[in-house]
């Protein structure tokens, strides 16, 4: 079978909507277009029923006790904002300390930074070389003033899965609320708000083959009952936690996407893991000086983040322009700084500049894996042939001993 180009291998950024999801959404654009908040007629009831069914399906995916624990938002950025700011505001009499990690998504980090400006104290925990938070660090960081710990399920760049169960034990013991940005991992690796004692969890549809622009926040209703101050004022939708007319078609799609994940996620993950390993082994067999960033064991099955030493990431992406991937190189960002996640792992700047993130997903095929592996191997060799660093490495020069003229 001929390979269709370009190939999408950037499933961490977003995913295409599953045709089964689209099919279920369609009637809610025109035929069943009611406002879920309209309590006085059948159009509204139909919409509300559909929304509640979606709540149930999403609740099931994270093992919520009740569908009422799911609050719909515009996406995970909003979910993270309302979870952290909402809890901070509600519990400010109890304490002003929040714990998070340095490799969280910007939606968490920048929210925490804003709270710092407002007088809250935030501890940013570092991670090991494996890209994971040490639960002992969480334990040590908790004080009498701590109101919230926010640690992601899986990292968006390096795919490392965090020890949420261990952290959840600690937070529950100390009576501290536990939030997790579960966007990248839910449905792909085990996630269970009961088993992990997670009190708030952010999820989004478009990372699981649902539509963009619809997210959810799991908010525990009992033991403990989590309270938060709404960050969006208005008609008091979503039990007062998030005002605004619900995106009914999007929510219906989210529900279907979650249902598919509940039923097929495990099998899909096994398939992706096999393909990811096939890709990794091919690259590591044919190329020298290839480094996987972060733990291989505790990692999303569809994630491979590797640094090809002596080759710059953006040049690499340009050389494989028929394959959509992403890089932690500075040149791909406006800031000219390499990835803060890779830096947090202690990956040197030179290797951070050389990193490529492959993201595999539902529609990735084995043929694509083989095609990409061959292409990458060929292009890395080509770019190394024109890299002065590779030549120096081959001549036995220690690159760290060279007096570089930084600019």
């Amino acid at each position, binding site marked *: 079978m001929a390979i269709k180009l370009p190939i999408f291998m950037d499933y961490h950024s977003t995913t295409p909507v599953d045709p089964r999801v689209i099919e279920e959404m369609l009637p809610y654009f025109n035929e069943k277009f009611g406002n879920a908040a309209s309590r006085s007629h059948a159009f509204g009831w139909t919409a509300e029923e559909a929304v509640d069914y979606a709540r149930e399906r999403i609740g099931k995916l994270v093992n919520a006790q009740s569908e009422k624990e799911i609050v719909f938002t515009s996406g995970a950025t909003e979910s993270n904002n309302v979870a952290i700011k909402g809890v901070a505001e509600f519990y400010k009499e109890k304490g002003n300390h929040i714990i998070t990690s340095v490799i969280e998504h910007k939606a968490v980090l920048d929210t925490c930074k804003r709270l710092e400006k407002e007088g809250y104290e935030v501890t940013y925990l570092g991670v090991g070389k494996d890209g994971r938070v040490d639960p002992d660090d969480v334990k040590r960081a908790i004080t009498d003033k701590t109101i919230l710990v926010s640690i992601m399920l899986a990292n968006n760049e390096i795919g490392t899965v965090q020890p949420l169960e261990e952290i959840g034990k600690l937070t529950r013991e100390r009576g501290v609320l536990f939030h997790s940005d579960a966007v990248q991992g839910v449905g792909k690796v085990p996630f269970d708000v009961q088993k992990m004692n997670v009190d708030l969890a952010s999820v989004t549809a478009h990372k699981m083959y649902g539509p963009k622009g619809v997210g959810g926040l799991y908010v525990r209703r009992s033991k403990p009952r989590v309270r938060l101050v709404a960050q969006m004022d208005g008609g008091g939708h979503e039990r007062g936690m998030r005002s605004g007319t619900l995106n009914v078609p999007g929510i219906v799609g989210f529900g279907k996407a979650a249902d598919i994940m509940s039923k097929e996620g495990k099998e899909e993950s096994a398939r992706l893991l096999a393909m990811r390993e096939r890709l990794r082994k091919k690259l590591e067999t044919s190329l020298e000086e290839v480094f996987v960033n972060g733990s291989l064991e505790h990692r999303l099955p569809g994630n491979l983040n590797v640094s090809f030493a002596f080759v710059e990431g953006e040049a690499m992406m340009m050389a494989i322009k028929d394959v959509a991937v992403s890089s932690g190189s500075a040149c791909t960002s406006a800031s000219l700084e390499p990835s803060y996640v890779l830096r947090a792992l202690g990956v040197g700047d030179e290797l951070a500049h050389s990193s490529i993130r492959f993201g595999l997903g539902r529609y990735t095929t084995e043929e694509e894996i083989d095609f990409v592996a061959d292409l990458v191997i060929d292009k890395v060799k080509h770019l190394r042939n024109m890299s002065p660093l590779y030549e120096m490495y081959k001549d036995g020069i220690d690159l760290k001993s060279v007096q*570089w*003229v930084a600019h």
Partner: protein
Amino acid sequence: MAYSEKVIDHAENPRNVGTLDKEDPSVGTGLVGAPACGDVMRLQIKVSDDGVIQDAKFKTFGCGSAIASSSLATEWIKGKKVEEAEAIKNVDIVNELNLPPVKIHCSVLAEDAIKSAIADYRAKQAAKKA
């Protein structure tokens, strides 16, 4: 970010990639940039007795614009007198390749690489005479 056609052309078909013998007294080598900054350029020139750049080679670790800037630099300086090559400014490279503001440092690095190679050549020549 969209690249200009000229950047793509140079990045995909780089001119004058290679290595000259850096021990040769008629060869000047410039190595600029740093791996931690994400770009390193090595530009070499081979100069004839009458001061003309006969050959130029480069190797670059860096993004497409950095590769294109150094490739273009070698193309331009070949056949030029050393003094003429020295007069090339980074803005000339920016204009030729239509580099966006965020990539201007790539052209600066290419200019530095030319100047550094010429300085090395001159130092070798001075040492030879001394």
